[in-house]
């Protein structure tokens, strides 16, 4: 007979052990999946996790780790703040898109003027765009009690249509021979989010991600607001009696996560992606949810989780071209990771005992 008993205190050991355990289990089950697809599981796992960092072409893939990791960390940090307080922003993908549209829009409005002020203005516009898009569910939640999960998600689909409209209409490259998509910002020096140190993948988005991590860490550890977030998540009623204003918290958490997602989108469109196009968004906003949980909603954990997730993206690309592993297999792999994380969380808050059940 197996019994599950609540622990008086969450286990500190398990809090660190479960993410590692989840990754190991995902590798085992992912390997089984790859084997079922007719690929050598060990080779596939090695290609995904080893090749990008230590393989023959690692010099090419290592910078990618920062390029792919930065938006994931930036978005996940914001989401984690809300998740801790029980405020569920799952529309980061939409805020990411709107941030990119606003950032690119400001940049393109100045084309072809050159000035050092253009890039900071774009950063501001991107942040504001993401913030404003997240304020829609926030204000509706505070004012009308509307479910923020559904509204933020619906707005992802609206943002995707807006993106399509922009790349076919307003922001379309007038010299693009009728192809959809904006001008390439990489060829517009004032608006280009170039690498700060060439060949490292280190662009301004990475800097922003690091600042966000430090900011979130300080906020959660030392600031009163961080305390309010933690209390609200763990005991909403106690937080209310403690004088926490839940409405203001919703506005802050959704606003911050939208702002960071908008920044991520803006840095992406001005740098690695280069242009607004219909398929600009690749799901970072959704993968960031996995990153936030894998990092245990802890800023430092999120950095590690973001890099690991970036690794699966890069390794997945390599496995796709070298082994013919379908792109969707990596998506399943990432989904599995979230499953194992959530299931293993049981071990943090409960202990599993073997033996006969006591008669109550």
């Amino acid at each position, binding site marked *: 007979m197996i019994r599950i008993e609540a622990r008086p205190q969450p286990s500190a050991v398990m809090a660190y052990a479960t993410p590692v355990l989840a990754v190991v289990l995902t590798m085992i089950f992912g390997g089984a999946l790859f084997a079922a697809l007719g690929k050598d599981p060990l080779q596939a796992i090695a290609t995904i996790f080893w090749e990008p960092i230590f393989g023959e072409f690692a010099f090419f893939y290592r910078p990618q780790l920062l390029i792919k990791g930065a938006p994931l960390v930036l978005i996940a940090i914001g989401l984690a703040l809300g998740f801790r307080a029980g405020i569920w922003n799952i529309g980061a993908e939409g805020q990411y898109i709107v941030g990119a549209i606003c950032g690119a829009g400001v940049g393109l409005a100045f084309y072809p003027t050159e000035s050092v002020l253009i890039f900071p203005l774009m950063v501001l516009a991107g942040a504001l765009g993401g913030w404003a898009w997240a304020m829609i569910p926030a204000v509706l939640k505070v004012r009308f009690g509307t479910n923020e999960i559904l509204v933020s998600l*619906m707005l992802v*689909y609206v943002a995707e249509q807006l993106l399509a409209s922009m790349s076919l209409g307003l922001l379309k490259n007038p010299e693009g021979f009728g192809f959809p998509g904006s001008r390439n910002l990489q060829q517009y020096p004032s608006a280009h989010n170039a690498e700060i140190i060439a060949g490292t993948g280190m662009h301004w988005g990475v800097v922003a991600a690091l600042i966000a991590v430090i900011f979130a860490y300080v906020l959660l550890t030392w600031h009163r607001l961080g305390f309010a977030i933690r209390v609200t998540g763990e005991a909403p009623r106690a937080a209310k009696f403690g004088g926490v204003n839940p409405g203001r918290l919703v506005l802050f958490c959704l606003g911050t996560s939208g702002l960071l997602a908008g920044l991520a989108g803006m840095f992406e469109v001005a740098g690695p992606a280069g242009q607004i196009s219909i398929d600009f968004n690749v799901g970072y906003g*959704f993968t960031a949810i996995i990153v936030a949980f894998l990092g245990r909603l802890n800023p430092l954990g999120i950095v590690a989780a973001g890099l690991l997730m970036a690794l699966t993206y890069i390794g997945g690309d390599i496995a796709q071209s070298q082994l013919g592993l379908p792109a*969707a297999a990596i998506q399943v792999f990432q989904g599995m990771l979230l499953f194992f994380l959530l299931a293993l969380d049981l071990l943090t808050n409960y202990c599993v005992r073997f033996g006969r059940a006591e008669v109550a």
Partner: protein
Amino acid sequence: MDLSSINPILLIAAMIAAATPILLAAIGELVVERAGVLNLGVEGMMITGAVCGFIIAVNTGSPTVGFLAAAVGGAVLSLLFAFLTQVALANQVASGLALTLFGLGLSSLMGQSYVGIKPPRAEATPLGPLADIPVIGPIIFGHDLMVYLGLGIVAGTWAVLKFTRMGLILRAVGENHDAAHALGYKVKRIRTLAILFGGACAGLGGAYISLIRVPQWTEGMTAGVGWIALALVVFASWKPWRVLLGAYLFGGITQLQLNLQGAGVAIPVEYLAMSPYIVTIIVLVILSADKSRAPGSLGRTFHASG
């Protein structure tokens, strides 16, 4: 612009068909939520049902077998959610999101070699001369079996919840799981069964999109219908007949904007395509003032020793 190209009778008939996938998914989720569980994985279960149904229907040549497979596929995926939330006591919001992310990946993996294939056609229900009645015929009697099955499930759900002991127990578990447990009901078992029912319904809804509405397989083809279904349950204040009303409303808007796109209205296609999502948000805002109808234990984890 040529609005006269829209035939109102065909439009209403198409609206009913467009509402069916939303209706199926929403009525399943309604039962799950009445049992006190919030499963945000509807989108994932729908798309899994869509791909399972499509693959089986193509391989067997029978849409009926395809629909059965879709129900099984959706239910199997929901079993994962049941395990996470009922056995591993994981957070329901996070688990539901995980289910959606996983289902989207799994479905595109399963469906890769089926892109561009035409599924076997589902026959219209042989209601004989009824379908030939002018106006009413094509609107009410010209549909495939799944439309009527959807209506049947709504009626059945309403009757079971309202009149049977089973429905009473289910509602008790949803309203107050501690009290239900004290009365000796198996809270987790009942919830798991409700989750399975929700999964099967979502699977059917997904397969309706891939086998009848579109009909072909493309990645991510459910495009948020699962999330609209979730919103619909709130809209319906957890009442079966209002789910039907809501589904027809949303199905109607979806179909109407498609017809307007076809008729070449001066509004850009992208803005028309946004409309179902924006309307969902507006309706949610109007209706979210009244939360009194929500099941008391909705979204809360149950653990007997705690």
